[in-house]
């Protein structure tokens, strides 16, 4: 586990789909102190960043099951070891932005190992509106 200064550094051993070489990211708050959003910025590609948010903020009923393969890849022993984040697709009008509930990011809080998991049940959308329309 390594930190860039005091900023948490996450490592995605396999990158994420579409960006297989982006393995190291830092997470920094986006916005005011009460903002739930963060920016996940790539250390391997300075132009690459994603807005992320803990899914519980906008989707309180979202309780994905982490499958055994993901738990094993991340060395998770219990759900308490994991932090969930979902990637936001920012729309031209901010309030139309969506979150990817199909592929949440799962982070091992102790080791900062991370992976973009897939919830293949058919129940979740990759572009779920953050706000009701």
């Amino acid at each position: 586990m390594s930190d860039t200064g005091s900023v948490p550094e996450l490592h995605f051993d396999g990158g994420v789909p579409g960006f297989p070489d982006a393995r190291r990211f830092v997470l920094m708050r986006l916005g005011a102190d009460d903002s739930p959003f963060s920016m996940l910025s790539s250390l391997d590609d300075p132009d690459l960043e994603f807005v992320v948010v803990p899914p519980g903020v906008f989707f309180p009923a979202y309780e994905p099951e982490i499958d055994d393969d993901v738990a094993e890849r991340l060395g998770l022993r219990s759900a308490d070891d994991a932090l969930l984040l979902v990637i936001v697709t920012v729309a031209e009008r901010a309030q139309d932005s969506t979150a990817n509930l199909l592929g949440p990011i799962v982070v091992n809080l102790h080791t900062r190992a991370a992976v973009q998991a897939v919830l293949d049940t058919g129940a979740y959308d990759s572009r779920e509106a953050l706000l009701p329309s």
Partner: protein
Amino acid sequence: MLVLTRRANQSIVIGDNVVVTVLEVRGDQVRLGIRAPRSVTVHREEVFRELAETNRAAASPASDSLSALARLRPPRPKEG
């Protein structure tokens, strides 16, 4: 594309580290087991494509939309 024919319980090896095993063939479904190191992700193809497309659409949003986005908050639950 390399085409191989396998029976149940036979495997193929990709590179040095990825092993795909046919676990079971039942009707028109094939059950595959995949052993791969953590540096190699494995996904159903159509799901992978969906994730890759959405990740690309989400990557590096324009900076002028970020401050409005960062101000979004979930709607307060209505007092009953």
